[in-house]
């Protein structure tokens, strides 16, 4: 292979686009030709320079894009029946006007979603007249097939008639059950509604569970926001430390750092030092360094 041919193939070699034989031939030529080898190094340097020029995408911009897409898809949804992407994309920040509707939707899930209500279950049962009675008013059909199974065909446009007592334990249980629903939008809505009840340990644990394990980052972000007033709580701090180190979303890791540093204990410093040891995101690293600096703690563990 001569130098002209080799130089012509260097771009493809750099991109990994050469076939086996061509690559071998170019590599052999490079071993014996310092001029072409220097040219290859210049091309690699060019790539490195351009990589530095590559624009960075902030987690905030990505979050804004997702939120706005959610809204626009919400306007699109009626065009396609049976599919509501707005529901899932609403996960970052549901519009305030949707909240009452979400509360009612959650109640409707109790009636429609399961299609079977078993006595003794934490949701609605035949032995719970406070909610069962209005349901009878609106239900088109309520024909017990067996004592254990009650199929209900519900009239969605009349759901507003259901009374919702905010402190009703059954409503709380319904919301807690919805935190584990398979629909992420429903999980977000239920967390939103449970937010005001975070003083309740059961609710807080459910939200901590969502923050730790929910597969949807929007749901985890919502849980994180809901737990904000309890950032100094020991149990919350333990979960936050895990999130800072392990969550797949940089937005959530960054926000978890903000909550975690509300306490300035040695455990927080060591978590942030661990972040610096393993984190690759420059924005989060910078945030950790700043937090450690504010705590007068060193960035290294020595």
């Amino acid at each position, binding site marked *: 292979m001569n130098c002209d041919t080799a130089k012509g193939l260097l771009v493809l070699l750099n991109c990994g686009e050469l076939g086996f034989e061509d690559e071998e031939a170019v590599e052999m030529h490079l071993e014996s030709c310092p001029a072409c080898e220097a040219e290859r190094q210049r091309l690699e340097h060019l790539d490195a320079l351009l990589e530095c020029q590559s624009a*960075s*995408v902030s987690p905030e911009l990505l979050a804004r894009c997702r939120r706005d897409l959610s809204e626009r898809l919400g306007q699109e949804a009626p065009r396609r029946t049976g*599919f509501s992407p707005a529901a899932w994309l609403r996960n970052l920040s549901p519009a305030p006007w949707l909240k009452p509707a979400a509360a009612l939707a959650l109640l409707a899930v109790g009636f429609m979603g399961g299609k079977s209500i078993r006595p003794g279950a934490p949701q609605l049962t035949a032995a719970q007249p406070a909610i069962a009675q209005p349901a009878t008013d609106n239900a088109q059909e309520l024909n017990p097939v067996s004592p254990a199974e009650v199929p209900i065909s519900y009239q969605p446009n009349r759901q507003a008639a259901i009374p919702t007592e905010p402190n009703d334990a059954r409503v709380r249980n319904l919301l807690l059950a919805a935190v584990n629903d398979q629909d992420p939008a429903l999980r977000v809505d239920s967390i939103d509604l449970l937010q005001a009840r975070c003083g309740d340990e059961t609710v807080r644990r459910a939200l901590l569970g969502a923050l730790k394990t929910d597969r949807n980052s929007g749901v985890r972000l919502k849980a994180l926001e809901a737990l904000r007033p309890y950032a100094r709580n020991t149990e919350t701090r333990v979960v936050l430390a895990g999130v800072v180190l392990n969550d797949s979303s940089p937005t959530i890791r960054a926000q978890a750092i903000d909550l975690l540093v509300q306490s300035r204990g040695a455990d927080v410093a060591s978590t942030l030092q661990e972040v610096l040891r393993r984190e690759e995101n420059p924005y989060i690293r910078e945030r950790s360094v700043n937090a450690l600096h504010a705590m007068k703690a060193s960035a290294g563990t020595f």
Partner: protein
Amino acid sequence: MDEDALIRAAQAGDHGAFERLVRQYDSSVLRLAMNLLRSEDDAHDVYQEAFLRVYRNLPSFRFDCSFHTWLYRIVNNLCVDSLRRKRVRRTEPSVVETAEGSVDRLASVPDTRGFADPHRRLLSKEVHDRIHEVLAGLTVRERMVFELRHFQGMRLKEIGESLGTTEEAAKNCLFRATRKLRSDLGGLL
């Protein structure tokens, strides 16, 4: 669930599957748009429009090409349109007269280039300006091919498909772009 199954589920109305599809690609789509358009607002618009088009047209997606290629074809077309519009806008004066006197509109535009990141300030501003200038000198298509190959890691065949051309044409475009960059940035290498 593999990608084909995910697409089929999304086509059937599984919104969780649609979410996963979007989340799988949206960071790299946004990065591509940012790299090409150098503006958060423009990149945001391309992101919105691209996924809206995916949403609208997903039911008619027939697996004639990969989803990735199809998505990037949409994104590339949107970026080309945006760049063309930008070139027209460039002729507008940056300094405008207002009731409060002259205002330089560019002064209020945030710097979203790589060196706005503190970790990338190591390179001098002059070097960055020079690189930016050279990149801006490439044709829209050359920039696309270069970006897709180097920063999105796409194969030339796939780039060709997503740009509606052949692998050979994409390869030639990459050669041209590299030659220009190599020549114009020669002093820095």
